[in-house]
């Protein structure tokens, strides 16, 4: 019996795009496109099953082996540092993690900088690498509000097009790093499904 390859996909545009790459590589599962509330989609013939999870949860499913492989943004890998194989950069879902603030922001090095973010780990690492003292305000959404209301000086967040920032009179101050979607694998699953995962990796990393 062929072993099923379990794939965790992030809900949303990125996951849908990633699914297309899997389908093109021969791991399709037509039932996934039906509009229903099912959580798991299987194609026994192709030996693959997919499930949709919250993007920030993909790495958790893979790390604990509920999924063998998954598609996840580099931001999540850097933030949660899951113990998984980071097999390749898929070159899609490109954006960047950046520091943004009000247009008239001026950094006063005499006091600690107030930063709002949902990426606590990335923010800490970045500011400690440049030796800047900070206070972190952990938020879960609408990060842009923090500097507008004067709660923090800046934000550290994902910037895709910059439209949201512009509409709120904010701008990118520094880019911390570029981000894109990565193919990750569970370290134990890799040992038992090496061939399948290697083939998939080769197919998915064929960048056009």
């Amino acid at each position, binding site marked *: 019996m062929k072993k099923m390859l379990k794939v965790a996909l992030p809900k949303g545009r990125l996951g849908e795009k990633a699914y297309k790459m899997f389908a093109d590589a021969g791991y399709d599962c037509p039932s996934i496109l039906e509009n229903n509330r099912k959580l798991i989609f299987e194609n026994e013939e192709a030996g693959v099953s997919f499930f949709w999870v919250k993007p920030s949860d993909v790495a958790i499913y893979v790390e604990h082996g509920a999924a063998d492989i998954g598609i996840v943004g580099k931001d999540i890998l850097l933030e949660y540092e899951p113990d998984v194989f980071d097999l390749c*950069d898929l070159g899609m879902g490109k954006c960047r993690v950046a520091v943004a603030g009000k247009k008239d922001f001026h950094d006063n090095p005499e006091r600690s900088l107030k930063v709002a973010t949902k990426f606590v780990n990335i923010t800490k690492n970045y500011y400690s690498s440049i030796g800047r003292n900070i206070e972190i305000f952990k938020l879960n959404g609408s990060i842009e509000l923090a500097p507008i209301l004067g709660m923090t000086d800046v934000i550290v967040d994902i910037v895709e097009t910059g439209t949201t920032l512009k509409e709120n009179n904010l701008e990118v101050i520094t880019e911390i790093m570029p981000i894109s979607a990565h193919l990750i694998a569970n370290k*134990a699953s890799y040992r*038992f499904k090496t061939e399948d995962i290697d083939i998939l990796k080769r197919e998915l990393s064929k960048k056009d």
Partner: protein
Amino acid sequence: MKIFTESEEIIYKLRELYEKYGYRRFKMSKFEEYDFYMEYKKFLTTQNIISFNDLDGSLLALKPDITLSIAKNAPEGENTKVYYNENVYRVSHNIHEYKEIPQMGVEYIGDVDIFAECELLRLAHESVQEIAKTAFAKGGEYAYSLDISHMGFISALLSHYGVSDGARADVLERLGKKDGEGILKICEGDGVCKEGAEKIASLAEFHGSYRELSPLSVNEETEKIIKELETVTNTLGSKMVHIDFSIVNDMSYYNGIVFQGFVEGIPRNVLSGGRYGNLLAKMGKNASACGFALYLDLIELYGEAGEHFDADIIILYNDVETTEKIKAIEEAANFYRENGFRVIVAKKGALLPKAKKIIEFDGEKEVLV
């Protein structure tokens, strides 16, 4: 009747195995001087240690690791062959709280030659197989893998292509993630030639047999290591052994082969080991050392839940006014106990545990409910 849990059964079988190979059980105290761990901090997989003051004010720690204590206590000039089955105290990966973690391990300290190395790998292989067979078999089938890496091979390659000290840690980190692209980028930034960068990157992607290693060889040293890997693989003679360089341990402690064991059904390595001669050198001891540890908590965490019953049979009684009645109930219960069943006797109307069968006892006859 099954008394032992699967992990108890495994511990029992493995102790027998290690004893047969001449390893003696090493019992030790749960405490160690805190300073000792600070000195060898990087050897530990955890940086968090539970510490407390002894009555004289000195700082003690609950052991987060056993190997260090064994290495410290190993007498010089003789071969120490020991195994242990102890609890260690570490931060749990999942809940980020301190946990008591059962751990078993084998250590060989002294003159560890290629024969001793093969013997340890054999024990590691048998241990992983035992775990797979006893606790993770499905329909009689199970899968496991013993993956071997070599710190000397990695180090030789990095030195040959002049990877700077600053970039080494990053390369090792990416190697552990099988991130070949990441390694290419680091090497490029470090001024490593294209050929070198590609070889180091393909080290990350390598998973297979020593036979495929020769394109990665760069000098006499790497040739020698491939020979060593050939010897251990052929000695083990198991299809479940792979060479995989994503297993990286700290180079300041580990110098030769390092290895990890995996069992299908457990999402992370259940065994970890290697040659840690550099640690002995740091302790000022003139000896080599090799050993491995098994993370027994994973067996319970990821194994089958086991039986869904608290007992096989519950015998219910109404009232027990006379000695005869008590004796009669006892007799009925013992009849089943002697036949290998777990029996609970309970008063009718009480909240009952889960059992496969409930029997009502009314003096003479037993009614099956």
